[in-house]
């Protein structure tokens, strides 16, 4: 993952609440086996008309929304599925930040792991941003604040580990693999207990398969 520390953009707004993962990327497009190229399918059924042309009623199709990488969305964005295709599609579409008063758990975790800043702010600040589309914001991950055009700031919380990973481009799998000794020790103890219950013997290969990094 590339480090993400600061993002500057105008905002585009989707006021709808509960924008679910089926709206972000409809299920019939999930037959893909790669992560790439999902941007053109992002918001597909909302964004295009039946004949394939752009739907003028879709807010992100408006001229003023072009080039915006910060999306302010209605409450409870990303609810529904655990499909990581949703953040992949948003990123490929050009969205780098989602600001919302409430973001669904699994979506938020998936988003942050891919460098999509899913940021929760208070209901009042959220309301204000919903009411002011197109303003210039700069998101500071290190300082955990959103800079407003008038110099004001909106502070936000970010889980410290997610913040660390974003700022340093840390790969979480790499981090987990650094703990392989601890995992081994845990497995030995747990499997020992389980083997006692289930009358199973444990093979060395189960404890630490060859080829595992470390």
């Amino acid at each position, binding site marked *: 993952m590339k480090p993400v520390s600061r993002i500057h953009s105008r905002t585009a707004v989707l006021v709808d609440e509960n924008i679910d993962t089926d709206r972000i990327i409809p299920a019939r497009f999930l037959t893909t086996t790669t992560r790439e190229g999902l941007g053109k399918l992002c918001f597909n059924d909302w964004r295009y008309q039946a004949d394939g042309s752009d739907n003028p009623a879709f807010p992100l199709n408006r001229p003023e929304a072009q080039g915006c990488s910060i999306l302010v969305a209605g409450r409870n964005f990303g609810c529904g599925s*655990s499909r990581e295709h949703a953040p992949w599609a948003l990123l490929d579409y050009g969205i780098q930040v989602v600001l919302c008063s409430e973001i669904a758990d699994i979506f938020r975790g998936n988003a942050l792991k891919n460098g999509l800043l899913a940021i929760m702010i208070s209901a009042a600040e959220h309301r204000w941003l919903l009411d002011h589309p197109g303003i210039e914001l700069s998101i500071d991950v290190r300082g955990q604040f959103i800079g407003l055009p008038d110099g004001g700031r909106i502070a936000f919380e970010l889980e410290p580990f997610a913040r*660390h990973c974003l700022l340093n481009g840390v790969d979480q799998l790499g981090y987990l693999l650094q703990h392989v000794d601890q995992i081994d020790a845990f497995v030995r103890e747990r499997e020992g207990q389980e083997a006692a219950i289930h009358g199973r013997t444990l093979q060395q290969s189960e404890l630490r398969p060859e080829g595992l990094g470390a």
Partner: protein
Amino acid sequence: MSARTLFEKVWDAHVVAPETADTPAILYVDLHLVHEVTSPQAFSELRERGLKLRRSDRMLATLDHSTPTLPINADGSRPYVNAEAQAQVTQLETNCREFGVELYGWGSADRGIVHVMGPELGATQPGMTIVCGDSHTSTHGAFGALAFGIGTTEVGHVMATQCLLQRKPKTMAIHVDGQLPRGVGAKDLILHIIGTVGIDGGTGHVLEYRGAAIEALSMDERMTVCNMSIEAGARAGMIAPDETTFAWLKGRPRAPQGAAWDAAVAAWRALRSDDDARYDREIHIDARSVQPTVTFGTHPGSAIAIDAPVPVASSAQDQRALDYMHSQAGQPIQGMPVDVVFVGSCTNGRLSDLRAAARVLQGRHVAAGVRMLVVPGSEMVRRDAELEGLHKVFLAAGAEWREPGCSMCIAMNGDLAQPGQLVVSTSNRNFEGRQGKGARTVLASPATAAASALAGRVADPREYLNQEQTA
């Protein structure tokens, strides 16, 4: 040790490294379920990094989402919706072969929807941590397991390390007191609960369902309840294992046997919340007040009793949802004309669900112009249903009897509704377009779905069940 909830007991038993202010906990995973849609990119990542699976013996894979539910063609090919769907299935077959994962694929007598199959095989057991790249993994919580959906990046984490990085969620108790009235089932109850809690009411929490009404539920019904925990925004839902759980699991292929079984049950008995355990939130639901429940809008929280008036929209967006659904404020959902009825999915595709639908359909015929699909949740469900002759009831009533799979729950295999059609569906999501672009979904129980198929309109199953009683 201080009093702990069921969730805390299972969580604590799987912590490899506790969380700190700066880092999440490392949580060990006992069982990793895999399907074709959310795994290909994770296998690719492993390949790119030259990593192997840490515990292929703790993984089970199945084909369910992209698979056709129509029988094999005369030439031996499968009627896939498109080449991409077929390629995705082939990719999982290849990945499982290459990485040594047990795949319940085509030709397996036990293939099924991942959340139907895992429990049936006895792979799902109390006290386990279970994950899958699928949000309805919460289903397995019915056994007192901590089970939740993960994204594809995390699928890769579990493949390589058998662990996940997790912050400890909060807990919420949902006490369901009293008993459900006759003709009202688990699906009605969970829709009612989501309608009460709201679709984001459980965000950040693991739910524990408890109380007399929950204890009275069968395992199939408990799975229906836990399945939809995610529709309240929760990470997971859990029910403490009890005699019902143990009786259901005993003798299943992957459950412990003999002396190991007795030892396992003894350990599982400790898996209940201590009397003075504290939850971050608690709510109470009176089971006696639950009616046959359906949805009127475009998310699962828009749930009301079948004969209750649709509430007036309180925002432009709510009005849009009513417009999309052609729901009328002030009018009940009961009576709305129906085009398609779907009985199936990991919410309601188990044997007891098919029995409930068959009981209503028995000796009757689906209304003219209504298409009804009955899709068993697994090969095992299909076999059992056919042994009982349920398929004959469905076929005689004019319904289609299909091969197991997710089918119209997610509509990515070609089973879908046309724009504008109204589907009464036993699945779990009524989002816009979930069952086909422009399709309108009313979530309901199998009995309500069957009654609606007969009436050609959204109908109260009690009418049919009462006739049965007086006949």
